[in-house]
C-alpha cells in the first residue's frame, strides 16, 4: 500500500497539451476519482502514474519513491482497463494466476492465492471458463482479481464500468466500494460520470483541459465548488446572470414576490419522487426546477402556465 504524489506533471502529444503542470496528492489507502470530460487529461494522468506514458516534465512518487523513470512492471501498480484487457487465450484461473506465475511463485502458493481472489470477486465456479464465456461484469471482476493478485501498492481503474450496461454498472460500483473497504489498497478510478465519482470515491480530483480544477470530497465539490466549471460538472445548474442556482434550490410560486422571476412552464417530467419542471423565461433562457412529488401536486403546475421563481440558495464566483 502506498500514497501517490504527482508533482508538476506536463505531457503533450504532437502539440496537444494533455496535462499542464498537474499536481495531485493521493493519500494512502484512499479511493480517489479523477473526474472530467473527455479530453480533460484524466486518462493521460492515470497512464503517467501507471508508467505507460512518460511525462515531458514533473515527477511521480509512489510510496514516497520517485518512480518517474521506472517501467510499469516495476511500479507495483495494478491496472484495470475499460475493455477488460482479458487474456483471451487463457482461462479465468490462468488470467488471475498470470502475475504470480511470471514472478515464479511456487505452484501451491499460486493455487491458494488464486482461490482466495476468485472467492473475493465471486467467480469461484467459473475458473475453467475462457473470458469469451463470461459476461462483461464477470470479465471486469476477473480483471480486478488479476490486478489484485500481485498485491499492488496502487490500483488504477480506467473507466472500469464504462463498457457495462447501467444496471451492472450500478451493482459493480457498490461492490467496488465494499471491496475497497475490505482490501484498503490505494485506488484511483478514472471516470467522466460525476454520479459514479460521487458514489464511489472519498476524494475527487476534477480535471478540465489538462488542469486540476478542484480537489475535495464529493460533498465539498457539490456544496462549495471552486468555480463555474466544477459547479456545472458535478450537478445540473441554472445560470441567472452572474449567479448559479441548483435546480433543487429553485422555489416555484404561483404568485409574484419581491425579486422573483417570471417564467413559463415548458414541460413537466415525473420521475417518481422527483418532478422536474422545465421553464423558459421571456428572454428565451431555459431553467430547470426540481420539486418533490408533493410540492408539484400542491402547485399543480402544467405546461404553458406562468410561474414565479426565486433561488433559495445561490452561488456567485468572483473572477
Amino acid at each position, binding site marked *: 500500500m502506498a500514497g501517490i504524489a504527482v508533482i508538476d506533471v506536463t505531457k503533450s502529444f504532437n502539440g496537444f497539451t494533455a496535462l499542464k503542470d498537474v499536481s495531485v496528492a493521493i493519500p494512502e489507502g484512499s479511493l480517489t476519482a479523477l473526474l472530467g470530460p473527455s479530453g480533460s487529461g484524466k486518462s493521460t494522468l492515470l497512464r503517467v502514474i*501507471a508508467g*505507460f506514458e512518460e511525462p515531458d516534465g514533473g515527477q511521480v512518487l509512489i510510496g514516497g519513491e520517485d518512480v518517474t523513470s521506472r517501467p510499469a512492471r516495476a*511500479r507495483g501498480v495494478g*491496472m484495470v482497463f475499460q475493455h477488460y*484487457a482479458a487474456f483471451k*487465450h487463457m482461462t479465468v484461473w490462468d488470467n488471475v494466476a*498470470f502475475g504470480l506465475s*511470471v*514472478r515464479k511463485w511456487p505452484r501451491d502458493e499460486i493455487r491458494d492465492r488464486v482461490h482466495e481472489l476468485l472467492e473475493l470477486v465471486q467467480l469461484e465456479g467459473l475458473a475453467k471458463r475462457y473470458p469469451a464465456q463470461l459476461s462483461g461484469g464477470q470479465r471486469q471482476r476477473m480483471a480486478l482479481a488479476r490486478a489484485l493478485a500481485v498485491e499492488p501498492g496502487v490500483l488504477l481503474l480506467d473507466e472500469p464500468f464504462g463498457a457495462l450496461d447501467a444496471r451492472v454498472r450500478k451493482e459493480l460500483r457498490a461492490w467496488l466500494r465494499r471491496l475497497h473497504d475490505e482490501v484498503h489498497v490505494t485506488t484511483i478510478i478514472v471516470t467522466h460520470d460525476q454520479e459514479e465519482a460521487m458514489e464511489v470515491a472519498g476524494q475527487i480530483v476534477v480535471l478540465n483541459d489538462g488542469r486540476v480544477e478542484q480537489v475535495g470530497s464529493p460533498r465539498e465539490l457539490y456544496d462549495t465548488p471552486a468555480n463555474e466549471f466544477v459547479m456545472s460538472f458535478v450537478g445540473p445548474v441554472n445560470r441567472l446572470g452572474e449567479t448559479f442556482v441548483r435546480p433543487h434550490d429553485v422555489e416555484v410560486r404561483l404568485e409574484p414576490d419581491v425579486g422573483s422571476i417570471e417564467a413559463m412552464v415548458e414541460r413537466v417530467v415525473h420521475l417518481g419522487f422527483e418532478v422536474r419542471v422545465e421553464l423558459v423565461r421571456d428572454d428565451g433562457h431555459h431553467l430547470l426546477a426540481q420539486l418533490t412529488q408533493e410540492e408539484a401536486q400542491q402547485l399543480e403546475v402544467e405546461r404553458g402556465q406562468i410561474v414565479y421563481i426565486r433561488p433559495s440558495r445561490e452561488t456567485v464566483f468572483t473572477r
Partner: protein
Amino acid sequence: MSRYVLRSATLAYLALLLLVPVGLVFFRAFQPGFHHAWTAVSSHQAVHALELTLLIAAITVPVNTVFGIVLALALVRTRFPGRGLVNAIVDLPLALSPVVAGLALVLLYGNGGWLGGLAGHGIKILFAVPGMTLATMFVSLPFVVREVVPVLREIGTEQEQAAETLGARPFQVFRRVTFPAIRWAVAYGVVLTTARAIGEFGAVSAVSGHIEGRTETLPLYVKSQFDNLDVQGSYAASVVLALIAIATVVSLRVFHPREETG
C-alpha cells in the same frame, strides 16, 4: 435461384482456372502407369532437386518467420522515422517480378557487383545454394509480416500493458500474451511462405546457373525436363510439387478448421 447461379458460376470459374489444369497434370503423369511416374521422380537428379528445394525452404521459412514477426511488431508497436517507407518496402517483393529480384542479386553479388568480391574469398553466393536461398527469402519476405500486422493492430496494446503491470518482462509479454494472440496469423504466414519458397521459379532461376544435379530446385527441374523433351519426367515432378502445395494448405485446415474470426 440467384444463389445457385452464383454458386455454379464460382465453381465453374474455379474448375476452369484451377482444377482442370492441375487435374490434367496428375492425369498425364499417371497415364503411362504408376510405375513409370515413380521411376521418373526417383531418378538421382529429381531426388536431388527435391532435397535442394526442401533445404532452401527449411532455411527460408524459419528466418522469414522470425524476421516477419519482428518487423510486424516494429511496424505496429513502435514509432520510428521512415516507418511508412519500411511499410511500403515490405510489399515490394509482391509487386516486383521475381526475375528482377533475381537479377538484382546477380548485380549485387556478381562480377563487379558491390559484394562481388566475396567470391574471391571463397564465399560462393551466386550459382550456388546461398544465392538461391537469398532469392527465395527475398520473394517470400512479405507473407508473415502481412498476415501478422492486421492482427496485431486488432488486438491492441491493452493486454500487453496489463501483462506489464503484472510484472512481465518484455519477452514474457511476447511469449505469453502477444504470440498466443497472433499464432494463427503466423501459421497462415508460414504456410504461404512455405508454398512460395517451394514453388519459386523466376528469382531462383536467375541466380542458380542451372547446374544439373547441383543447383536445380524442383521447379527448375520441371522446366528443364520439359525443355529436354522428357515430358513424362516433367509431369511427374509437377505432381510432387502439387502434392506438397496441397499438403501445406490442408495441414493448416486440419490444425485450425474454423475460419479465424478474431
